[in-house]
């Protein structure tokens, strides 16, 4: 928004810039600090004596002989079995994203092309489902899953995450499909396509931006989930986020807290890269729901 007539005073400009800088510091500094600290030993990053040790690396020098050490990373990934957690996260994320996109595009396409009243009610029901706290759903799952003996394994968690993710995916893709003109698939139908063919060959090729956005959000949900994965997976199958929590709980030896720090950095870095790459899609996804509906 560039106001042609709007002349800002210098004082306002300075104030504005200062405010943005302070906010960015608040938003980003914790991550930078954790990244920095993950290359130190515990006695420095969590220093009882002097917080300046985290910068001067007093104990890191004593213990390892260098300013930086990647000991926490190597230990967490091998001894702490973080490799297994990240493998599980990759499996869960890949399956959740592909399945929920498949189900979501079909359902949202049908919703956007239906003129019946039940389509409206389905969307409202999805909104209510979206509002359910995940932990209340988990308290509903646990008992039946124990009885059916499907608790603790990855496929169960994948299906649950797909289902939890559906309401949001439906709403998002619904508003994207609404922007694709109806005439496009109607002409295909007149030419003799079935609904599925029209969907597959006419609509999907123009829907990629929407699908990528919806995929990103499914990915963030699956990647970031704690409630479902912590309670529905057994120790062996834990994904990254519950694994980080388990490093906090076990204070058997000194290294564990630093494992958590390095694990946090390892888990966050790929996510940041992804968002940096797809920033435009993330923002358009967050706003389509808001501005249009």
């Amino acid at each position, binding site marked *: *928004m560039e*106001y042609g*007539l709007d002349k800002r005073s210098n004082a306002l*400009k300075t104030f*504005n*810039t200062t*405010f943005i800088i302070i*906010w*960015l510091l608040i*938003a*980003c500094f*914790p991550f930078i*600090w954790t990244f920095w600290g993950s290359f130190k030993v515990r006695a420095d990053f*969590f220093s009882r004596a002097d*917080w300046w040790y985290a910068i001067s690396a007093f104990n890191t020098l004593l213990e390892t002989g260098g300013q930086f050490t990647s000991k926490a990373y190597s230990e967490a990934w091998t001894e702490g079995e973080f490799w297994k957690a990240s493998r599980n996260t990759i499996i869960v994320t890949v399956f959740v994203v592909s399945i929920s996109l*498949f*189900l979501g595009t*079909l359902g949202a396409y*049908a919703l956007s092309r239906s003129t*019946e009243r039940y389509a409206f009610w389905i969307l*409202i029901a*999805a909104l209510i*489902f979206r*509002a359910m*706290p995940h*932990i*209340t*759903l*988990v*308290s*509903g*799952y646990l*008992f039946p899953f124990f009885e059916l003996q499907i608790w603790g394994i990855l496929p169960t968690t994948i*299906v649950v995450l*797909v*289902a*939890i993710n*559906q*309401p949001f995916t*439906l709403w998002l893709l619904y508003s994207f499909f609404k922007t694709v003109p109806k005439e496009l698939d109607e002409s295909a139908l007149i030419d003799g396509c079935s*609904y599925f063919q029209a969907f597959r060959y006419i609509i999907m090729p123009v829907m990629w931006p929407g699908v990528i956005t919806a995929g990103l959000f499914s990915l963030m949900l699956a990647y*970031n989930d*704690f*409630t479902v994965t912590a*309670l529905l997976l057994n120790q062996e199958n834990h994904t990254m*986020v519950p694994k*980080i929590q388990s490093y906090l709980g076990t204070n058997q030896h000194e290294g564990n807290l630093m494992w*958590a*720090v390095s694990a*946090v950095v390892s*888990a*966050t870095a790929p*996510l940041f890269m992804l*968002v*940096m790459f797809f*920033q435009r899609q993330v923002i358009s996804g*967050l*706003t389509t729901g*808001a*501005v249009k509906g």
Partner: protein
Amino acid sequence: MPNKTFFWFFLPTGLAMILFIGLPIISTGIQSFYAQHDQVVKEVKKCDPFGCTVSIVVDQEATSILRDEKPLGKFNGFGTYIDRNHLAIEQISDFWKETDTFGEFINQVTNLPFYKALLFTLTYCLFVTPNVLLLGFIIALSLNAISRKIRGPLIFGTILPMIVTPLVGSLVLFWMIDAEGIIGANLQLMMEDPYLSLKSSRTLTWITIIIYGIWHHSPFAFVVFYAALQTVPQEPVEAAIIDGASRYQRIRHIVLPHIYPVVTFVALISLMDNFRVFEPIIGFSAEGSAQSLSWLIYDNLVNEEVILFGSAAATSMMTIIGIAILLAPVLIRTWKEFRTAR
């Protein structure tokens, strides 16, 4: 689209939602009426040269047989809802009779686990939601005034707190604020109080978690407001400038009315998200002084000895009722709009 085609297109996603969102809610409802079995006890007669004593011990075998037969537990009706750990009807009426002043009564009631959690959850919602709206709006306004060329990286920096999972976000902050972290240590130096720490006081813990909530949710409000600001029409703004409206007046009378629907949307979403606050309590290891409704459910579900399905389910049902109350105005409004649109 014909109904039949709609059915086949919608079947997979509908089935997933019914099976894994609809049924669990029903399952939670059923579980909330059951409670775990009491242990079966039996009398054991022990005789020694000095006579016989009768002692009562737990009959492990009978207990496990009972548990296998009826895994859901014994039927308890609304018993779980009104017990001490939930609505605590009995305790409250006792407090009402025993306490002299109203303040004391409130004090006693908010010490009960459910009310304690409810109080924290509501306080969190009450403080976080308006501040998120305010901070998000201010950031959107001031980023909007910055040159377009450098906006991209600035937006990326701004949304970082939102894209990390709450557990990681709260851990990252906790490691700085804790007594051994950079901010905590400096606060101790500044206040000249070597024992000052996050865990030392309930108020401090609450404030920290609320600050975390604002930090984590503001970027979402920012993104939505920022997008809405791009759609504000130029002409009325320019007309207002010519008429001599101040910057504040322009925002108050032109920008705000334009983005008003979006404000209600953000308020609703962030209220819903705040109501289920849970992960920061684990991240800040604040279980001792701050418990939310979601945390109570989690605590029941990870119970060491026997998972308290009934108790967790009762709290879940009451949380769902809370969500329904929050959602009701929106649903009523949508329904009215739908009625008039027809």
